[in-house]
């Protein structure tokens, strides 16, 4: 499952390649999305990096100058010195002022750097976050529908954090932080190399050690983070459920709240235990590397003291010691910067991994075959089988079905027989695992999926209740209408009104506070809630809006009241006129609307024919029909059953 985590230590070459790719990816993204800010951050990081050695340099010079002009100044306790009479100060200031000026410049650079840095980092954060989110969403809608059947997709989606692009935006900041610290450290190194090359070498070695340990630590923590994605999602799932307007009534009535809260809490506790364990595990190596660094610092102090016997000035010594504490800070900074960069690289890997998911494209995308309107030969299923990803048994097995242009097919069968799956295959939303579907003799998988779907329209059984306006809920059937400018102007667009009238939505829409402009869903300002049947009528209007060759209606009347249902049947004849229509229904009275009834059972076609023929055959269909019809055929009293 999931990402293959490269073994950091055992595959350094692969790791290096991955790192280079990651850095390239992030930099590419940065300079594409925020070129100016990215350039400024880069420049600024060098300027800021220069300030530390500048300050050390100035302080060192300052002290040496003071010392030169006050030759008899020796290191006695400062309390004694306070009691001393001042030496001749006037000679000293001229040589000191330039040092102070340098310090002033350094501080000004720092302060500008701080303000500009904050702004730039927020800017890149927002921009990059947006860009990444856009990429993720654009990718998600381009994926084949079957991807949503894989748990893997949800893990990949979750670790990209949806809005986690802002993590990447800190990359330059962290690189700049790292560069600043490294430049600072390099400046210090020069000072130390001047004292003795061994000191420099030792410091470099220690920094290297910390870097290695840090990356090991981060790798482990991130692995645990990735592995815990299902737990985070489970916790999120229960949390969402417990505040969902739809779920709360059932939860409350069944007294489920405490139980679900406990379950959520258990998931959290498991997640927490793993995180803490992972942190404990990496604490010791981290501390070890710090200890190593301090040991080296101690040796350096020792070496400096030995060197004191030689020619080193006290001013230099003080500067070097000050520098050593600075070096410790810088080493911490480097470790911290590396840790963040590592995290960002890992994140970029998650992101690239998500973006690498294969988009839905036809087998021959360029100038592929086109569908003629109207269809000439119709649609043919040739030995089509389909198994959902991860499922054990097929949803459809060896389906052979010819649908002629203009034909009306009723698809019936028990729950789970494969009716919805067949419709989705027909719409090109899934691809057959075996066999092929031909449209006018062209293999459906070679057609541009969008182009093919433009020819079709559908009401899904699980239609979406978009928390948008009524207008949009209908206009989603034809995006051309959405694109048409101001919403108010098109709200009463004749086509919208016609579709609403056809689906029977016009009645209740007129009663809403703002007609077609009414937002739907109580969660939104001015939002209204609709009943299930009203929602279904909007879904119908959405489907009717589209001028399509093929109409697929999956249980379109499940929630409709009797009048609306009958109205639907009346409209169906009109809607299906000149089109190929597929009607999935458990209302077998409605199945008679089909020129042909296709009966599915356990993923296979078991019967086929018109209503009379199937009744005559006295098979599955006749039995099902009988079950429903008897209610209407003979009076059936409650008392009879008791």
């Amino acid at each position, binding site marked *: 499952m999931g990402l293959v985590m490269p073994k950091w230590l055992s595959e350094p070459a692969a790791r290096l390649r991955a790192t280079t790719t990651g850095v390239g990816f992030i930099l590419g993204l940065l300079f594409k999305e925020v070129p100016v800010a990215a350039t400024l951050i880069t420049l600024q990081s060098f300027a800021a990096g220069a300030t530390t050695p500048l300050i050390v340099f100035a302080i060192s010079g*300052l*002290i040496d100058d003071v010392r030169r002009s006050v030759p008899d100044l*020796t*290191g*006695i306790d400062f309390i004694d*010195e306070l009691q*001393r009479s001042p*030496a001749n*100060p006037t000679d000293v200031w001229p040589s000191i002022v330039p040092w*102070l000026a340098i310090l*002033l410049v350094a*501080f000004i650079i720092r302060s500008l750097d701080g303000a500009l840095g904050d702004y730039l980092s927020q*800017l890149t954060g927002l921009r990059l976050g947006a860009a990444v989110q856009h990429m993720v*969403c*654009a990718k998600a*809608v381009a994926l084949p529908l079957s991807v949503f059947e894989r*748990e893997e997709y*949800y893990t990949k989606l979750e670790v990209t954090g949806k809005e986690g692009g802002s993590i990447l935006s800190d990359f330059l900041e962290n690189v700049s932080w790292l560069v600043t610290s490294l430049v600072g450290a390099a400046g210090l190194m020069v000072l130390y190399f001047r004292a003795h090359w061994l000191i420099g070498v030792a410091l470099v070695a220690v920094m290297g050690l910390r870097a290695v340990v840090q990356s090991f630590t981060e790798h482990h923590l991130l692995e645990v983070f990735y592995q815990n994605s299902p737990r985070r999602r489970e916790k999120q799932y229960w949390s969402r*459920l417990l*505040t969902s307007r*739809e779920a709360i009534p*059932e*939860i409350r*009535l069944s007294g489920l709240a405490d139980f679900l809260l406990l379950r959520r809490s258990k998931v959290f506790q498991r997640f*927490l235990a793993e995180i803490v364990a992972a942190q404990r595990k990496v*604490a010791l190596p981290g*501390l070890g590397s710090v200890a190593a660094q*301090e040991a080296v610092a101690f040796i350096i*102090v*020792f070496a400096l003291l030995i060197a004191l016997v030689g020619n080193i000035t*006290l001013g230099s010594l*003080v500067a070097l010691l000050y520098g050593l504490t600075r070096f410790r800070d810088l080493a911490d900074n480097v470790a911290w910067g590396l840790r963040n960069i590592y995290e960002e690289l890992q994140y970029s890997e998650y992101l690239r991994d998500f973006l690498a998911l294969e988009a839905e494209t036809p087998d021959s995308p360029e100038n592929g075959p086109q569908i003629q309107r109207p269809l000439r030969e119709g649609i043919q299923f040739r030995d089509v089988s389909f198994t959902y990803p991860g499922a054990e048994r097929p949803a459809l097995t060896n389906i052979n079905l010819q649908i002629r242009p203009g034909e009306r097919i009723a698809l019936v069968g*028990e*729950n*789970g027989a494969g009716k919805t799956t067949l419709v*989705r295959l027909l719409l090109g*939303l899934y691809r057959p695992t075996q066999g092929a579907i031909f449209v006018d003799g062209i293999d459906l998988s070679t057609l541009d999926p969008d182009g093919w779907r433009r020819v079709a329209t559908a009401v*899904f059984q699980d239609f*979406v209740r978009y928390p948008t306006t009524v207008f949009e809920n209908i206009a989603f059937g034809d995006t051309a209408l*959405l694109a048409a400018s101001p919403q108010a102007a098109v709200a009463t667009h004749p086509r919208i009104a016609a579709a609403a009238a056809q689906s029977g939505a016009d009645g209740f829409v007129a009663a809403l506070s703002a007609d077609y402009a009414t937002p739907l869903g*109580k*969660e939104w300002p001015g939002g209204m809630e609709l*009943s299930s*049947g009203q929602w279904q009528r909007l879904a119908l209007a959405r489907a009717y809006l*589209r001028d399509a060759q093929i109409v697929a209606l999956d249980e379109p009347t499940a*929630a409709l*009241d*009797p*009048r609306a249902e*009958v109205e639907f049947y009346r409209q169906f004849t009109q809607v299906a006129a000149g089109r190929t229509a597929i009607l999935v229904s*458990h*209302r*077998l009275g409605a199945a008679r609307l089909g020129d042909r009834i296709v009966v599915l059972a356990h993923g296979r076609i078991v019967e086929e024919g018109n209503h009379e023929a199937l009744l005559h055959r006295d098979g599955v269909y006749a039995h*099902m029909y009988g*079950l429903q019809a008897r209610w*209407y055929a003979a*009076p059936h*009293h*409650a008392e009879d*059953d008791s």
Partner: protein
Amino acid sequence: MSSVPNTTTGSWQRLKYVPPTLRLLLAADARGTILHFAISAGMGLFPLAEVHVLRRLIETAELIVAGSAPVADGLAWGLALALLAILHAAVVHVREIVDRRHQEVLGNHIEEHCLRQAQSMPLEWFEHDKHYDLLHLVRRRTVGRLGATTNFLTRSVSDIVTMASLLIYLGQFHWGLPLLLALGTTPGALLREFIHRQRYLMDRAQAPDERRFGVYIDLLTGRHAAAEIRLFNLGKWLLDQAGQLRRRLQKERLQLSAREARLTVLSDGMNGLTHIAALGLSVGLLVNGHISIGAAAALFAAIETFQITYFGLIWCGSMLYNSLRYLEDYFVLMDNPRIDLTAGRKLDQTLATPIVLDNLSFTYPGAERPALSNLNLELRPGERVALVGENGAGKTTLVKLLMGLYRPTSGRILVDGVDLSDIAPADWHRKFGTVFQTYQRFQTTVEENITFGWLEGADDKEHLQSVLTRSGAHEVAAELPQGLSTLLGKEYHAGAELSVGQWQKLAIARAYFRPAEILILDEPASALDAKAEAAVYQHFAELAHGRTAILISHRLASCQIAGRILVLREGRLVEEGTHDALLASGGEYAELYGLQAAAYREEAG
């Protein structure tokens, strides 16, 4: 009453949230909080110790140069410096672990309590869009804030320790030094408070749009809308909408950032000047021979640390105050009236007399017209009632009122002569087994999808088996690889997916699983195949025997199994009677029945 916090809460008034915040910290994670404080107080001493040891090291070095001290003395101080640093690093590591845990625990605590609160607020609360803004603010902004509060609190403790020690230290050199640093640094730090306030106001203002944005993202990346988005090619439009919204939100944020940047330059500039002035003062002390070079070096370090700490302290204070702003949202949410589901009259016995709906009316909060008007009705124990009517007639609302999920706007419901609002809700809820029209699809095992109906009976396998058979759910389970223990849904595990009808069978099983006195089936067969539908009606008749049962259905044939049929139109009861009586009366019911039956009459084919 408005549950949305008031932005005009006076600045000082907000301080009243300090004690509850502290209580909240201790309630959520007492150990972590105390540990945090202890570690931070200890860490506050490190800077002073480091400055002191450094100074002694340099002084010793000077003595060594002068030949008046052995090299070993210098080594001792060097070692001390190294040990101090290692100790410091160790404490930082420990704090990191403590902190991570603490943050997670606090965040979880707040979220859990929000969820808990949501479980006990009246359902009407969920009818206001502003309330979703509040929930969003708390979950998005406050959840992470409490953890940060401990950080700021403890950091200010350690900063105070550091500052006090450095204050004494600096004062030894010159009293003007700390004063200069404090005066120069304060205005800059206070500017931050202004920025924080602006940010908070923006968070509030953007909450509805952020929620809207979240909807677009969920539609685009989620499973639910994936098929329609592909069919209708909605991806581009949704991406555009999300993009436009994001650009607007971003623009506002960036304008604020630019203002912040200008203020930061001002504040940092003042800090820099102050720092230079302090350095100048120390150089003066050095030049005039007041202090040694070693002391001067230590002084330089102390000045930097003091200034950073002082600035940090004020900043912390401002951040703490800022946390109160966000925590206020949480406290306001938690202050919403709760229903104690167990408070009220107990209801142990089975119902002896009819449930009386007395002139019942209900209007959804914010709605213009009532969903139910002046309904008068008696439901006798053991009676089977069918509720029919057009979409939006108020059928679902009526049963929700009956279940006590909503309270009537006027009129009342009498249970054995007692007003329902006086009865303990939990006791009342226990009487119902319900298939909701918008039933839940729990992302867990098949078995739990059923036992969730009655947790107390989850271990009763025999009961489960009988329910499975009666509801047709056994067929669903039989198709699945691990039968009853098959996980369902893809949200957080690689579960199996069911068809709509199969889910509905589980929902029916869930309702049947509950040993309820009143059975409510709200369009239970909408997605069922003919066989399952017939079975539902048959079992409904069996199950309902001896129970009160209410069936909402658009399949009018099924109403024949009911002893009485109620026809609702626009929230009013318009017809009432048996199937035969209503057919005979030739009213709305008869008309609708005729329409449906036509589809099954042979001559209609």
